[in-house]
Every structure is written in structure tokens, then in C-alpha cells.
């Protein structure tokens, strides 16, 4: 039995901890500020003073169309995190507090990118069909000024995991090894949800990959749908709908939307844990595809259209079980209705699961023979 004063100290300590934790959780980027002058607050995308938000026939702000996430495919998820390999020796040191390149730096990158030949087109022109086959697997990317997709915490990095988050992470499985890890596979549960073509999960599905970046917004009265090319999923978002029972759990959660002015706000809860929150295929993401989510995760997304061609997408991830505080990514998307979204039919990764298991068994058999 604690004494009264101990109880009071615990209560005060708890309240302080809650206050500190609550502040961190609620840390947010200021809202997007559309305006006629390009600046950091609007990601250098101007809204003409005479522009009016298009409306659907039933009067909702109209966001419909295809907004390929590949538009920001050159930007790493985390700032100063390479993702695919070491930084070139001649690259300037990365400043973790620099969210945007200067105009001069950006011009230089655009100039360099403009000089890069389109390898696919070059190979086709030269009759190199085999090389074109190998070159044509990337979606087209566009240089950006922002230096990471994550804008909060201010250093552009994913927050630390809680001890429980680390514990959950250690229990996850994937075909993607952690540095120095030796994996073995015996059954389908030894793979992650993406290996198995079930889902890339959330928030991972909302970030750019090297291919299959199609994202289409479709609206009808009372609903918004987000059609995601990879992996053949549609997020159906009822507007102003009541919450569902906490007993309902989905890989992609249960989303509810509403309008704040012309901004579409989507809040998603009721997650079924299992998929990784981040995907190693998104540049600048942690290795291993083992960033857990909990049933407590809440995701808040905002779609703010700036003009006929651009919207700003903001996503805040809050998971008190896994994360020591929330994180927010924000980036522009460009309307491109010429982007053809194709079916992404894939079940248990087609032939890959048996291939991997057979490979893993052969490796272990070989190792065992070498020992004897």
C-alpha cells in the first residue's frame, strides 16, 4: 500500500508524463496554406487568385482523377537516409534540419535530370528489346525540392519505437533480411503481407515505390474511394459516417471522411496488425519490413487541392503502443489522367512462396552436409 504522499507523487508524475506524451502525440505541422506566392508552406505550388475549387455535381469539392505517387518518387521517406545504398563520395553533407533544397540546388538537379536519357526509349530506338525490357520497370519520377517525405518530427526521421514496439517488431517475419540476418523459410507465415501479395498495409501503401504508383480518387455522393494500383486495393471512405465497433479489424483499417472547407480529412482506425507500417521498397525506409502497427494506430490524412493540377497530401500516424510520438509526412501530388492504372493480380506472390521455401531448404541441407 503506498502512502498518501506516494500516491499523490504517482498521480502528479503520471499527469506530467501524460501531458508530455500528449504534447508529443499532438505535435503537428501547421496546415497547408494555399496562396498566390510559391513558398515552403505550399510546397512552392501557387494557387492562382482567380482559381476556384472544382465541385462535383452534388456540390462536394472535386478531387477526382489519377494522382500517381511516383511524382515524389525521388524523395526518401526519411531525411538523410539513403535507403538503396551509400551516398556518393562527392555528395554534400546532408543537413537533417534542411527540409527543402534552395532554388539554386533545385535548378541544378532539374538540369541534371533533364540531361538524363530515358533509358527505355533509347533502348527501344536502338533495337535493344532485351535491355528495354529490363529498363522499363520504373515509373517516371520528377525531381522535388523537399528532402524527405516526413516533415514532422522536424528532423524528417521516423520517431523511436517504444519498448513494446521493438518487441512487436522482433516477432515479425519477412523475406527482407535485416543487416547481417540469415533468414530461413518453411511456411507461408515466414513471409510478410507484401511478400504474399496480401497488402502493403498502411501507411506504407500511400508512399512512392519504383513502380505501380497508380492512385486514383473516385467520388460519389457520401463516399470517396482511393484506388491503389499496388496491391489491387480500394479504400472506400464513407463521409460523415458513424464509427464502427472496435471488434472490426481490417488490414487497411476502417476509414471515415469529412470536409474541412475544401480539404478532405480521412481518419482511419480499426487496424488489424500484421503488415509493416513502412516498406523497405520506399526509399529511405528502415530495412527488414518489420515496423509494426498496433490496433491503437490512428491515421489522419488530408487532401488539399491547390489548383487544377496539384494537391498536397498530408498523413499523420499516431500509434501510442508502437511509437514514442506521432509522425507526419506531407508531399504534393500531380494530376495525371493519362497514367494507366492496370490490374495488379497477384496471389501468394504467384510462384514465389514455394520457390523461396525450396531455396531455403536446399541451403540448409547444403550447410548440414558441409558440417558432416
Amino acid at each position, binding site marked *: 500500500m503506498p502512502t498518501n504522499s506516494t500516491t499523490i507523487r504517482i498521480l502528479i508524475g503520471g499527469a506530467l508524463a501524460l501531458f508530455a506524451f500528449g504534447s508529443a502525440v499532438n505535435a503537428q505541422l501547421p496546415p497547408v496554406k494555399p496562396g498566390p506566392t510559391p513558398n515552403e508552406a505550399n510546397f512552392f505550388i501557387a494557387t492562382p487568385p482567380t482559381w476556384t475549387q472544382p465541385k462535383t455535381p452534388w456540390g462536394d469539392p472535386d478531387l477526382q482523377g489519377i494522382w500517381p505517387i511516383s511524382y515524389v518518387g525521388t524523395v526518401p521517406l526519411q531525411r538523410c537516409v539513403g535507403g538503396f545504398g551509400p551516398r556518393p563520395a562527392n555528395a554534400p553533407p546532408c543537413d537533417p534540419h534542411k527540409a527543402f533544397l534552395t532554388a539554386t540546388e533545385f535548378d541544378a538537379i532539374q538540369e541534371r535530370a533533364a540531361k538524363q536519357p530515358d533509358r*527505355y526509349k533509347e533502348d527501344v530506338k536502338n533495337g535493344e528489346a532485351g535491355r528495354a525490357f529490363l529498363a522499363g520497370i520504373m515509373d517516371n519520377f520528377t525531381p522535388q525540392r523537399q528532402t524527405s517525405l516526413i516533415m514532422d518530427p522536424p528532423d524528417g526521421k521516423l520517431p523511436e519505437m517504444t519498448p513494446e514496439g521493438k518487441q512487436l517488431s522482433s516477432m515479425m517475419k519477412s523475406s527482407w*533480411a535485416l543487416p547481417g540476418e540469415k533468414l530461413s523459410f518453411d511456411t507461408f507465415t515466414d513471409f510478410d503481407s507484401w511478400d504474399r501479395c496480401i497488402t502493403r498495409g498502411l501507411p506504407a501503401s500511400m508512399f512512392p515505390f519504383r513502380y505501380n504508383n497508380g492512385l486514383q480518387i473516385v467520388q460519389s455522393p457520401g463516399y470517396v474511394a482511393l484506388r491503389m494500383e499496388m496491391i489491387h486495393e480500394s479504400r472506400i471512405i464513407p463521409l460523415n459516417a458513424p464509427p464502427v465497433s472496435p471488434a472490426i479489424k481490417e488490414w487497411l483499417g476502417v476509414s471515415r471522411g469529412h470536409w474541412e472547407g475544401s480539404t478532405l480529412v480521412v481518419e482511419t482506425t480499426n487496424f488489424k496488425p500484421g503488415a509493416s507500417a513502412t516498406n523497405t521498397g520506399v526509399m529511405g525506409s528502415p530495412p527488414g519490413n518489420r515496423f509494426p502497427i498496433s490496433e491503437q494506430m490512428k491515421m489522419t490524412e488530408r487532401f488539399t487541392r491547390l489548383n487544377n493540377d496539384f494537391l498536397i497530401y498530408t498523413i499523420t500516424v499516431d500509434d501510442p503502443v508502437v511509437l514514442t510520438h506521432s509522425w507526419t509526412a506531407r508531399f504534393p501530388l500531380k494530376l495525371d489522367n493519362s497514367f494507366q492504372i492496370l490490374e*495488379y*493480380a497477384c496471389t501468394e506472390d*504467384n510462384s514465389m512462396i514455394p520457390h523461396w521455401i525450396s531455396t531455403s531448404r536446399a541451403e540448409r541441407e547444403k550447410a548440414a552436409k558441409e558440417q558432416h
Partner: protein
Amino acid sequence: MKKTISLSLAALGLLVPALPISAHHAFAAEFDSNKPVKLQGTVVKIEMVNPHAWFHVNVKEADGTTTEWMIEGGSPNALIRHGFTKSSIPIGTEVIFEGYQAKDGSHRANGRDITFPGGKKIFLGSSGPEGPPPDAK
């Protein structure tokens, strides 16, 4: 179209891509970087399936028998958007492929390069207005 040019991550001078082209899943989970293969054969089937396409190539062995190899390629959706379809490389085409064999020793490889014997060129039919002129085929 200055703003929509295709560029590699390396082009930005920020990163050096080190992963093989098959990025939906881990290369090391199936293929052995110590087992490079270079083989010549005839394309018998192209499967434009997700997450990755597969070329099936019949390779003639020294004893006269034929072995069917499966060569893993890239994501079909992006290829189709670029204009590369299942019929772009006709069945029966002679190819030389290089890649890494599967660790279990079966006749599967991760494709690193596909070329044509004797430097023969194959022009793709569906490459749009910027493709080769019709008489180049």
C-alpha cells in the same frame, strides 16, 4: 516534357541503387550472387504476371536435350505503361540471357541482361510515335 522525364535515383546524385531489378521481394531469398549464368536459347513463353514477369527459355544442352529455364524480369504494369507487352519479344526469338541462378539449383534465374545472338536488333512494335520508323524492322 521537361518535368516528366524518366530518371534514375542515381541521376540525382543522392543515391546509388544497389538492389537488383526485382524489388518486390528480396533477391537473396531466392537467387545466389555466386552463381552467375549466361545461356542461349529460344523464348517459349512470356508470363506478364505480378509481382514480376517471367521469361521461359528453352536452352539446348551439350547432349542434345533441352532444358526450360525461367528468367525473372520486372513488374509487368510499368512495362506495359512503357509500351512493352507480352508480344514485344516474339515467341521463338533466340536470346542470350545473363543472371543469377536460384540457390536450390533449379533452372530459374534472376535476369540481369537479355541480348540477341550476333548483335541482332529487335525493334518493339508498340513503342508509339517516338519508336523506330516502320522500315527499321
